[in-house]
């Protein structure tokens, strides 16, 4: 393993312009993160303080061990939906340290529509619990939700991955022996009542916390019974009478202290025994990534310049350096963890696909987690390549990526188009985590190409009706398509829909990867085995 020799010219105009452009995008990202985390209408914050409730961010701060990192996931979920009025989809999700244990948090944000669950809130909670299952991560639920957002009930209730999946995932976690601790900080009504009930341990705050299948108004309507919140499902009812809750707390601070104690009593997981060395920072400054990423997505860059700014001492053992050179493969360490890296350096050809499939098998054989750095426009098209079996070679990559047992973590560094997304461990291929960089784009094909195809179809339709179009008319057809396509292929749209686990400021990638690898090592892995590779 030796240091990558960077060919980046830090004094060049190109570097300077890239840097200015990408720093601007990073600033915009930070501002979006800040507003999503902290900016709320005054009336919502006033309501919380009237109810004697803490803001969700303050609750989390109190829960986590002081000075430890918190890897927040999908911060900008729902940023392009619901008129932008449901920041973070009303849920905070992230990985942190509580009493020395790595845990994942699901927290309802009662400052957003009373913590009501929108369709994307449900998707975010299900994803949080999927992460917990895949990585055997204990969960802390901070429950404070008004219940499902009824106007959109059809999109939150019945289907396989909707609300029921939250409770199914909780049950599976329990079956796997992964503990959950719930803190009831507000009302847990209807489905929400099952979150504390399905947790191994739960704590309920006297006065503000309540658990019931139907709240007082529903009870009144159904049976005519007049009952107060406390009589129906308050802290004392559940900790003294029903046994639905375990520990009463006099206030939020005490509830969080009890929860911390409970997490501290859970067994420490045995981590997968993978090679680890003393961590060292990269030789090349990760901040230089701003100058590596081009301003135009069409412009090619050497992924080794990215690797050099992610890995310990910038040291990389490149596998098959002269073969299939549009896919860079090799071994490195990130914060001391040995990893296998696959990064795109151009279109995937037959040889680069074979190299990728082979390298994934090497990583599985030697139990090395894999990092995929996506910048891919797709597999090569054309007669020559089809004759050489580009489709079956791509299929080999997909077979290898799907059958891999070692943890996969994907970073979409720039473009993620077409089947390249599949072969490079896109969302559908169960990477343990998938992050995006702010300028990256993701779609079945490039925006320009898609707009041209769609505009062509319209133009031909019109010409069949005997109408010909001027250049200006073609542009008026093409522009809106292009605009909509661009919007839907942006990183912000992707993260809004939870196609990823969040947008990273590129220099933060190294730290995020280290936390992701660390938690991924909680889950056992099987011996390598695969389906049939079409040879």
């Amino acid at each position, binding site marked *: 393993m*030796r*240091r990558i020799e960077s*060919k980046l*010219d830090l004094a060049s105009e190109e570097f300077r312009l890239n840097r200015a452009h990408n720093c601007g995008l990073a600033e915009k990202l930070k501002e979006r993160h800040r507003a999503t985390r902290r900016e709320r209408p005054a009336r919502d914050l006033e309501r919380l303080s009237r109810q004697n409730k803490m803001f969700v961010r303050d609750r989390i701060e109190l829960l986590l061990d002081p000075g430890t990192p918190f890897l927040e996931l999908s911060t900008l979920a729902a940023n392009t939906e619901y008129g932008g009025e449901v920041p973070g989809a009303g849920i905070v999700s992230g990985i942190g340290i509580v009493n020395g244990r790595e845990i994942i948090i699901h927290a309802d944000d009662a400052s957003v529509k009373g913590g009501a669950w929108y369709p994307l809130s449900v998707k975010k909670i299900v994803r949080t619990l999927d992460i917990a299952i895949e990585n055997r991560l204990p969960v802390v639920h901070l429950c404070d939700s008004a219940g499902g957002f009824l106007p959109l009930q059809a999109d939150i209730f019945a289907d396989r991955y909707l609300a029921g999946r939250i409770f199914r995932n909780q049950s599976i976690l329990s079956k796997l022996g992964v503990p959950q601790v719930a803190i009831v900080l507000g009302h847990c009504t209807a489905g929400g009542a099952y979150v504390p009930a399905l947790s191994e341990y739960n704590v309920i705050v006297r006065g503000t916390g309540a658990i019931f299948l139907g709240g007082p108004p529903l009870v009144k309507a159904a049976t005519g019974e007049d009952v107060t919140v406390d009589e129906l499902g308050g802290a004392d009812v559940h900790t003294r009478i029903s046994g639905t809750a375990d520990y009463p707390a006099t206030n939020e601070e005490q509830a969080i202290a009890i929860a911390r104690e409970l997490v501290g009593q859970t067994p420490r997981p045995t981590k997968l025994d993978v090679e680890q060395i003393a961590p060292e920072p990269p*030789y090349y400054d990760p901040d230089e990534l701003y100058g590596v990423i081009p301003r*135009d997505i*069409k*412009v*090619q860059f050497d992924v080794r310049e990215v690797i050099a700014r992610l890995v310990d001492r910038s040291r990389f053992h490149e596998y098959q350096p002269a073969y299939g050179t*549009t896919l860079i493969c090799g071994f490195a360490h990130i914060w001391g963890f040995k990893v296998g890296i696959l990064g795109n350096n*151009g*279109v995937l*050809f037959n040889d680069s696909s074979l190299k990728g499939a082979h390298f994934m098998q090497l990583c599985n054989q030697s139990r090395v987690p894999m990092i995929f750095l996506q910048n891919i*426009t*797709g597999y*090569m*098209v*054309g007669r*020559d390549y089809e004759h050489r079996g580009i489709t079956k070679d791509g299929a080999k990559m997909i077979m290898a990526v799907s059958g891999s047992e070692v943890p996969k973590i994907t970073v979409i560094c720039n473009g993620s*188009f077409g089947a390249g997304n599949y072969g490079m461990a896109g969302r559908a291929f169960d990477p343990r985590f998938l992050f995006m960089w702010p300028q990256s784009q993701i779609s079945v094909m*490039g925006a*320009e*190409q898609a707009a041209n195809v769609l505009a062509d179809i319209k133009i031909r339709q019109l010409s069949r009706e005997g109408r010909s179009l001027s250049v200006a008319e073609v542009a008026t057809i093409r522009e809106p398509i292009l605009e909509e396509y661009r919007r839907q292929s942006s990183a912000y749209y992707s993260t809004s829909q939870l196609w990823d686990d969040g947008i990273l400021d590129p220099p933060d990638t190294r730290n995020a990867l280290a936390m992701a690898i660390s938690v991924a090592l909680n889950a056992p892995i099987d011996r390598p085995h695969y389906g049939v590779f079409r040879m």
Partner: protein
Amino acid sequence: MRGAGEPRIGGDLMRHTFIIADAEYEAWLSRRGDAYVLHVAEEAIPVALAPTGNGEQVLSVGSETSHVLVATDGDMVHVHIEGSTFTIRYVDPVQRYGSHAAGGAEDIAEAPMPGVVIAVHVDQGQRVSPGDTLMVIESMKLETAIKAWREGAVAVVHVGVGQTFQRGAPLLTLAPQTGP
């Protein structure tokens, strides 16, 4: 070099190489029980390094001992010993045994994939330095810069802007290098 049939395992060729004041030194550290032995040339000398607690260390080489201060800076290690400072650089064996002529010998840039020329940045006869962008091609929605792989003068530009080409087609030729 060892003779045939000699019962030693492991030759001397893969000893670590260090550069100190422009001179190359080959050395190897091996374990003997709880202690270390330094192999330099034909000698095998017992060595030890022990911290003193005040940032210094005590280095023993054979029967001699000295106080040393060691500071690491990237690939360099600075050692202060007996009033002098030495800078030691480790030489990677794969690089050391690699050919210094790797790359740069070819005269022709061939198309890495089929595509179209977007821009040509150089004229015939123009001198270029490694890393200069010679032309930009586009293929599969991706723009790739064809960069000078060595010093030289442009002999032929085979394709012009807008022209398409197949994989392996010559794009640009540099004048052959004359002499070493």
